[in-house]
């Protein structure tokens, strides 16, 4: 996260770290149910097999997981059948954990948006992750406040790419606060009345974020996929093969 700040332990109890073998943290992910998490499809390119992965929750410092962290293996990875690697469209995956997590103050699911519920342009939401900060990789979970940008305005930043309805844009013209490599799959969440947080985006792609950042970040639009997500959870939970 560029332009963000260190987050307090437990501030984002749905944030998880998708880790693979020796690489350690590879991508962010988001807990949506005791046994289910979301991330983006491009994290699994070249590493599609579930046993390569584990999900760590209740983390703040990657180097010191601490007593509140919980680690789970991955039972199955469901990449969206329409995921398009070339244009990074339909960039979403549902991850089934090999066992339920214990819900604590530091590990809790985030809400999925209701059908056709979208954050309003110019509203402020939060992104979190352990991705690149522009000058280094952090140990502690970073958080940043970003502004939702309309698709039409977002398209103007990326004239060589198409911003599809499966995408959501957030950030700032100058890119002062933005997600970066290593944040992929992490949450873009907005607070609703009563302190309830809803997941509207998964960090997906953007312009180069090591050097001078230009334009906003692009997120997978979770609202577009909510029916598909719930179908996958239902099928894998209740349907005998």
């Amino acid at each position, binding site marked *: 996260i560029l332009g963000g700040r260190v987050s*307090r*332990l*437990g*501030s*984002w*109890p*749905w944030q998880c770290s998708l880790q693979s073998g020796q690489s350690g943290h590879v991508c962010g992910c988001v807990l*949506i*149910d005791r046994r289910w998490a979301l991330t983006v499809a491009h994290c699994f390119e070249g590493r599609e097999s579930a046993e390569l992965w584990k999900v760590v929750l209740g983390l703040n410092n990657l180097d010191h997981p601490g007593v509140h962290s919980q680690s789970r293996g991955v039972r199955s990875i469901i990449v969206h059948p*329409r995921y398009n690697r070339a244009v990074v469209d339909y960039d979403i995956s549902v991850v089934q954990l090999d066992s339920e997590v214990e*819900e604590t*103050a*530091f590990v*809790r*699911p*985030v*809400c*999925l948006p209701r059908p056709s519920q979208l954050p309003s342009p110019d509203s402020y939401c939060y992104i979190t992750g352990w991705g690149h900060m522009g000058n280094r990789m952090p140990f502690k979970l970073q958080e940043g406040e970003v502004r939702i940008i309309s698709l039409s305005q977002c398209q103007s930043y990326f004239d*060589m*790419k*198409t911003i599809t309805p499966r995408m959501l844009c957030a950030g700032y013209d100058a890119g002062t606060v933005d997600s970066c490599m290593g944040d992929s799959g992490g949450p873009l*969440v907005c607070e*609703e009345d009563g*302190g*309830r*947080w*809803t997941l509207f985006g998964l960090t997906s792609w953007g312009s180069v974020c090591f050097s001078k950042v230009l334009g906003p970040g692009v997120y997978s639009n979770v609202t577009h996929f909510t029916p598909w997500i*719930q*179908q996958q*959870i*239902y*099928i894998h*939970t*209740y*349907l*005998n*093969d």
Partner: protein
Amino acid sequence: CFHNSCSGCSAASRCEPISLELCMNLPYNLTSFPNYLGHLSQRESSVSWEASLFPALVQTGCYQYLMFYACTLLVPKCDPVSLQKVPPCRSLCRNAKEKCESVLGIVGLTWPEDSDCSQFPEEGGNTSCLLPEDGVDECSPSHFKCRSGRCVLASKRCDGHLDCDDHSDEDNCGCSERALWECPGSKVCIKASMICDGFPDCPLLVDETNCSVCRDNELSCNNHQCVHRTLWCDGKKHCSDSSDEWNCVSLSDGSGSVLTVFRTAAEYQVCADEWNPELSKLTCNQLGLGVPSSVSMVADHPGFFLATDAPNVCLSLSLSVCLSVCLPVCLSECGQRPAVGLYPHRKKR
């Protein structure tokens, strides 16, 4: 063999129509092989390195008649009377090489060695040779001609990148120019493979309508397969995309949030007899909505059928007897941040 005897007759040369797309706009339409690059057939020519090198080189605009020259090598003219090949003139070869060889050098490529110009006759000698006539098109059919006259590969037309020096390759890019399908009633372009694939892409979902013709006793899956009504919501997948088991349990949109199940392709309420908290919990979980907040029983709503054979529910004796299950809301404890409260909130000063 016409003019002199020969020991063995090599394959008698003959003319054949040009089929190489690259060279379909030449002022001649018969060719013969082997050609001047050693290819033995048009098929070999079409997959040769030169057949991709020259069209790419044409885009640089290094020589106006480069494509014409390339075609006289790839598919040399065949004289229908003498059945002999007619070569390019030496000056044409020399011009192309002098103007374009250096461009190849920039990208570390070399000029095709088979096309040594000394093998070709000087124009005006007693051997006829080819020179570009007026009106020869410098672009081939597999190019897009920019307004400025430049040629860019057809694949660059409407690809979202500005390739022509005057950007004309990105003008008027409708769906057909991009070999896409235009959604009726809108400007949205989608790939043909996205039609009837189970994922709505067009506004008003027109790409997913009229995709299947199922019999009366069947329903269409999300991917337009047909599955018998009795197999819907029976707990087993019959549609290959398992859509026969989607949304089998729902809370009716009406104010009461009445529990509704979809059985054998019809909607039913659930009778309250024998209902228990476990079923409430299972229902909310199946709906992906967390845990039940409360359950109440309501008199059945007019116009609804009552469940008769759904498992774990009563057998209704008549429309007036059975109360229905109503789950006002399944409380979802999602999206809370209890740990944040653990720290004394910073008092703004």
